[in-house]
């Protein structure tokens, strides 16, 4: 398993709340091969961002994180101490977030924000760190990078700020980049540019990319593999073309059907919406979390455990009625 950049088994994240324990991530298995892009897709509250934040170890202390296995870049990190995580962050794995306006500090120059981490972690001199920053800004397509190091974030547009965030994530030359909704706050034309940039960086630098999104259009354009998350678990996982061509989980099917496609969905027709809403995750959950919204649901769906199937190599679907859905 040396070509696995990330290999996680049974990740659980629970958060104590006033109403009881919120089991936000309920046993997630994830793996990403070196140089590949895995898209983690799901709707608000499904636990996709918490999964990512748990991987990089940035969850607050009160969140309880457990894993059966956690390996990154060939290292076994199952016993995750803060010191080991801190060492890994920025070097092996880096993360970019949704809104570059709130993640960049408005009172510090771009140069200062880019170099702070590597000067500490790699003990680079100011000069070396600046040279690295210029290299990375150039990489992400910021024109005239040397001159722009002394500028503040407000001097850049939204798309440029996201480029700067990407440059900042690349400063430690990570092997795995986690991007949490990196284009959601951007206009469509800028989104296209940022996705193209991520794609290009990935093939140039051999990065592995874990991209979290709710947008199946983004998934279709950039993913190698897709994991569909629902209520804290992976409902389905498949290579991108297989997932869109033949979705096997009723939830995946529902998601794909609910999106109007210009030229295909008849104008003004009723869209096949998924009825109901996501279940609450406070306390234990019995059986399949999707069964209340599922048209295939039967009595068996209330039973634990929900069986996982591998309908084809590289595919996984967790559903009591998998055979019936596939038929």
């Amino acid at each position, binding site marked *: 398993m040396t070509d696995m950049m990330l290999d996680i088994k049974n990740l659980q994240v629970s958060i104590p709340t006033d109403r009881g324990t919120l089991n936000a991530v309920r046993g997630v298995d994830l793996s990403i091969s070196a140089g590949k892009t895995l898209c983690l897709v799901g*709707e*608000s509250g499904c636990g996709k961002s918490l999964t990512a934040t748990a991987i990089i170890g940035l969850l607050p202390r009160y969140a309880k994180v457990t894993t059966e296995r956690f390996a990154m870049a060939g290292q076994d990190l199952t016993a995750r101490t803060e010191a080991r995580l801190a060492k890994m962050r920025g070097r092996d794995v880096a993360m970019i977030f949704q809104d570059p306006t709130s993640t960049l500090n408005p009172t510090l120059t771009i140069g200062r924000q880019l170099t702070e981490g590597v000067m500490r972690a790699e003990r680079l001199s100011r000069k070396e760190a600046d040279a690295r920053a210029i290299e990375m800004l150039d990489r992400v*397509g910021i024109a005239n990078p040397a001159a722009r190091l002394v500028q503040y974030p407000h001097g850049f*547009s*939204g*798309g*440029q700020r996201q480029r700067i965030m990407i440059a900042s994530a690349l400063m430690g030359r990570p092997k795995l980049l986690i991007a949490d909704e990196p284009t959601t706050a951007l*206009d*469509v*034309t*800028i*989104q*296209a*540019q940022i*996705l*193209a940039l991520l*794609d290009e960086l990935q093939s140039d630098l051999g990065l592995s990319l874990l991209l979290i999104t*709710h*947008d*199946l*259009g*983004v*998934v*279709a*354009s*950039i*993913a190698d593999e897709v994991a569909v998350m629902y209520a804290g678990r992976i409902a389905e996982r498949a290579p*991108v*073309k297989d997932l*869109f061509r033949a979705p096997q989980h009723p939830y995946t099917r*529902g*998601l*794909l059907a*609910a*999106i*109007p*496609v*210009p*030229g295909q*969905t008849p*104008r*003004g*027709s*009723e*869209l*096949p*919406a*998924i*009825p109901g*809403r*996501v279940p609450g995750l406070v306390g234990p959950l019995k059986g399949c979390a999707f069964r209340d919204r599922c048209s295939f649901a039967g009595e068996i769906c209330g039973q634990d455990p929900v069986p996982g199937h591998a309908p084809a190599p590289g595919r996984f679907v967790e559903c009591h009625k998998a055979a019936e859905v596939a038929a």
Partner: protein
Amino acid sequence: MTRSQTPPMIRMTGIRKAYRLHRKLFAPVEELVAVNDLSLEVAAGETVGLVGESGCGKSTAVSIMLGLLKPDRGEVEIAGRKIGALSVDERVRLIQPVFQNPNASLNPVKRIASLIGQPLHLHGGENVKAEVARMLDLVGLPARLADAYPGELSGGQRQRVAIARALILKPRVLICDEPTSALDVSVQAQIINLLLSLKSEFGLTMVFVSHNLAVVEHLADRVAVMYLGQKVEEAPTDALFDGAQHPYTKALLAATLLPDPETGMPEQLIGAAPADPFATYAGCRFAPRCREVQESCHTTEQTLRRLGASSVRCTIAGQKGRVGAAEPKPSGCS
């Protein structure tokens, strides 16, 4: 665009709105022209999509349409009457908004029944309670939610509340400003279905503002594309999606991501330079980012002209093709 004896439900003519602001602290006041020379007509029962990227002026246009903002120049008529001449009471019974974020547009300390009933209550309606119950049913919310607070509802349910509240005065026009952008796709489909059924049931006239072209394509009869305060193209939905004329519309369409892995990375038909709303342009405002730009574009003032089924603000559009190669002439609505 039917120009029969009945006036259009909404008619905006030559709207201009500028904000005067300081770009930086202590910098001199500058003018940001948010909407410039915007004319738009929406026939009764029609749905018009208004699309464009952040800062293109679509929300300013909406505020002006609703009578919430006074334009510097130009006229807005709703159902044939100037909006300035309407009393508030008359106005709210004609035109109502649904905004993007129901979390922000609903007062969190009021119960759902009171939120939905408020417009009726304020404008002297009777049977508020019965009407609220009817509205809840109409937008597909269970009656028991009448006593709930917005915080107890999901995002989709809150948007249903916002729609119920907008419709309780039985307006003829519904202005939806990104009503599904804050929602998940499965819920987005529910809200789109609801808007479609309400529209056909009540013959509503709708203006649908969105940056999501797929949603606009699904709902709108006609689409107007805005760029930096100007309408750059307007066409019937099919014509726009089958053969966009303006380079900016083409770029928008190319950047729209489809849920189809065979299409690969979106094509980029637009320069990386960001749009500058403060800049003054002698020629085309899109020229600095345009892939089809010609020298004359920077100096020639662009006016709307007819090209095939579209009305386009671009002098070079259609030059190479044969479609509608008619000589450029100023369109009736510019």
